[in-house]
């Protein structure tokens, strides 16, 4: 799970003698990757280009400002964009040959151009609803982001959190039942956090107090929560749906933010959401700030990197770990509430369907950083929904291949952009005070 034996990086200025000569490592990774994608672009968009007109609908029916649908001739647009892609690839190769680094913006622009070219190609003779595509992408990402935030906090403090799936599922189940019985959305959300905390308590107790292998405890917790919620669903919830699993009372309304929700494209995507999504925006910012700018964050990271050192200066390692793992559970539990209260409205057996494991992957792909992990989760959500939209507008690609798309995109993104990752040094290791 973590790369514990990663070589020390030479980033300690006082441990390195004054540099006599500046060495520049030439990395051809970016130009090679751009080159491969340029070849794909030439083949797909030019050689095997599709005829027709590609439409991009930018407004929803309920928008205040209506933007007309953009219509672009498929093949011509593909050729223009491919030329740009090839130019960018050549430019990056030029930069590397002159020992200059390939900046991040080049990668971003290249990726965006390729995406637009691909969408144009795929949408030949059809129209892609851009707001719908993005709304769905955000919707699919929300539980992943919550789970990833929980994972980041937990791993930064030194406890590997494989139980994200269980925390999500517990949150989904408990919030549905509580919201259904009480009719109070707030109670539903609080109980979801409590459920996540309960799962975390078990993880924390076993891994911190009894030094049980953290991964094993996490896996067992996932199985336990899956079994328990499925059992209760079959035996209790299905027998009394109106009282315990009533989607009419569980589901939260969408709360459009006045003004902001009328911004074209962004409005429907970001500001016509349920309260859970707005909490998410705040949570990402708060976790990022707190982790890197506050005393709490510094102590948390110290415990995760070098518990012995933290202990020496008077930080209670066990207590810090325990409460932060619990906090991680609360955040992941809130993500679980999104499945029931924020999205579908009723609990279903195993409804998280592996989202917790994708969130765990997002933690690692995001290099244990809340913002990067969020972006990784968004990328996965986008790829998932793109797959769905493309399949619907009549892509000629077989459906089994399409269903692989989100995973393929994530793997490519990780291999190409993220590179080598190094987790918190003490993550996964029990701290035994000597």
């Amino acid at each position, binding site marked *: 799970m973590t790369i514990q034996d990663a070589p020390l990086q030479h980033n300690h200025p006082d441990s390195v003698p004054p540099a006599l000569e500046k060495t520049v490592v030439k990395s051809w990774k970016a130009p090679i990757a751009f080159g491969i994608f340029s070849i794909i672009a030439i083949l797909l968009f030019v050689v095997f280009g599709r005829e027709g007109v590609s439409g991009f609908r930018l407004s929803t029916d309920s928008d205040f400002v209506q933007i007309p649908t953009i219509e672009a001739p498929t093949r011509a647009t593909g050729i223009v964009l491919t030329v740009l892609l090839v130019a960018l690839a050549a430019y990056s190769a030029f930069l590397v040959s002159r020992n200059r680094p390939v900046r991040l913006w080049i990668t971003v622009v290249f990726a965006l151009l390729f995406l637009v070219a691909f969408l144009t190609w795929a949408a030949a003779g059809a129209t892609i609803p851009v707001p*719908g595509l993005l709304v769905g992408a955000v*919707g699919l990402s929300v539980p992943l982001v919550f789970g990833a935030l929980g994972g980041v906090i937990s791993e930064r403090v030194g406890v590997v959190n494989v139980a994200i799936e269980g925390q999500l599922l517990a949150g989904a189940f408990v919030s549905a039942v509580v919201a259904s019985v009480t009719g109070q959305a707030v109670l539903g959300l609080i109980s979801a956090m409590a459920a996540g905390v309960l799962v975390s308590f078990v993880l924390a107790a076993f891994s911190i107090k009894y030094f049980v292998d953290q991964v094993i405890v996490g896996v067992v917790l996932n199985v336990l929560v899956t079994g328990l919620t499925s059992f209760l669903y079959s035996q209790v919830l299905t027998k009394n749906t109106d009282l315990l699993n009533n989607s009419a009372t569980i589901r939260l309304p969408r709360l459009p933010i006045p003004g902001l929700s009328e911004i074209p494209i962004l409005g429907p995507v970001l500001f016509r959401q349920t309260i859970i999504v707005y909490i998410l925006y705040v949570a990402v910012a708060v976790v990022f700030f707190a982790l890197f700018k506050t005393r709490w964050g510094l102590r948390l990271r110290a415990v995760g990197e070098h518990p012995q050192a933290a202990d020496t200066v008077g930080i209670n390692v066990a207590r810090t770990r325990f409460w932060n793992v619990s906090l991680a559970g609360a955040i992941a539990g809130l993500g679980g509430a999104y499945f029931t209260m924020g999205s*579908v409205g009723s609990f279903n057996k195993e409804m998280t369907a592996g989202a917790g494991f994708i969130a765990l992957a997002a933690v690692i792909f995001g290099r244990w950083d809340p913002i990067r992990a969020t972006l990784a989760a968004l990328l996965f959500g986008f790829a998932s929904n793109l797959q769905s939209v493309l399949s619907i507008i009549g892509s000629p690609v077989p459906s089994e291949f399409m269903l692989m798309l989100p995973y393929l995109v994530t793997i490519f993104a990780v291999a190409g952009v993220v590179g080598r990752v190094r987790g918190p040094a003490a993550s996964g290791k029990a701290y035994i005070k000597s």
Partner: protein
Amino acid sequence: MPCAGVSTRVTLGNVRNHTALRSAFIAGQSLEDILSKTIRRAAMGGIATLGFAALLAGCASAPAETGSTDAAASNALPCMVSDAGGFDDKSFNQAGFEGLNDAAKKLGVEPVTVQSDSETAFAPNISSLVDQNCTLIVTVGFALADATKAAAEANSDIEFAIIDDASITADNVKPITFDTAGAAFLAGYAAADYSKSGIVATWGGMNFPTVTIFMDGFAQGVKYYNEQKSKDVKVLGYDLDNPDSATFTGGFEANDVAKTTAQNFIDQGADILLPVGGPIYQSAGVAIQESGKDIAMVGVDSDLYESDPTYKDLYLTSILKGIKTATDTVVTDAAAGDFSSEPYVGTLENDGVGMASFHDFESKVNPSLQGEIDDLKAKIVSGDVKVSSYLSK
């Protein structure tokens, strides 16, 4: 089996009928199964204790002499294995389970049922039922075909029936299949007639023949409607010329993925939705309610208007698949000694499949539509209109 193996192999909670109490060996069942089953039947603690006592006693007495004393009503012991969906899936497992229970009630016997939690549990579950001296073992779902075939070859004296699979030809196996394409054809015709936007949509959970047969029939029905009425109603999510590119959610969970898929279809202007695959229709219902648009849904397997009234104002109609009735019939016949390996195929003709009524939509659909549907059904039964499917090529 030697008594030494008892302590590790037995599942207390699994014993459901009195005849089986003496031979509560569950050979080769996975630990996970045992755990889950034990939990599931935690409420039946009393019986479990009894079972344990009987098991201890079973070491002394020979487990072979079963069914002699408490064969109250019938010597038949019908049994059933679910696929990974479980008996509460609101879909074919549940329908089969209900059919089995109905038949068993009439026969006055207590059926033995085992849920499979994963594919690896199929073969062990069947063999454990063999050990329980079942006379008829119904396996639910084509996923169990291999396991059923192997068990049927090894136990020629036991009768088997498999739901949704026609691949096995053996003297002691009765395949029960449903040519739902015919019923879906009718629903497709009705949907095309009702659609105002001229766009209808269908998608599945996963690419299984029992899923795509609905989508296939539905698309054929729309195509037939277009030919008859010179219209151009489009089907999204399933292309008759390229069925491999059909849309699937990738699973049978009613979650945000299923909901987003429905939303994407709504964004494309579809106003009739046919989600095929267990509970995923629930997510579609939420997506429709959220869209605030005038969109209807077609139910699958049972008349969802009756069985899940949560979204009853959204159901244009439902495509019916008579698993419950067929299972009931097969179990009852087998108990009466009328078992045959001749496949049962549910069709429009024998009412094994059908289309539900329009319920709340009765006043909204074209007044002549029900008549046209009835005519069309007669034509399909007589063979004037051909509906193709993997069962009737």
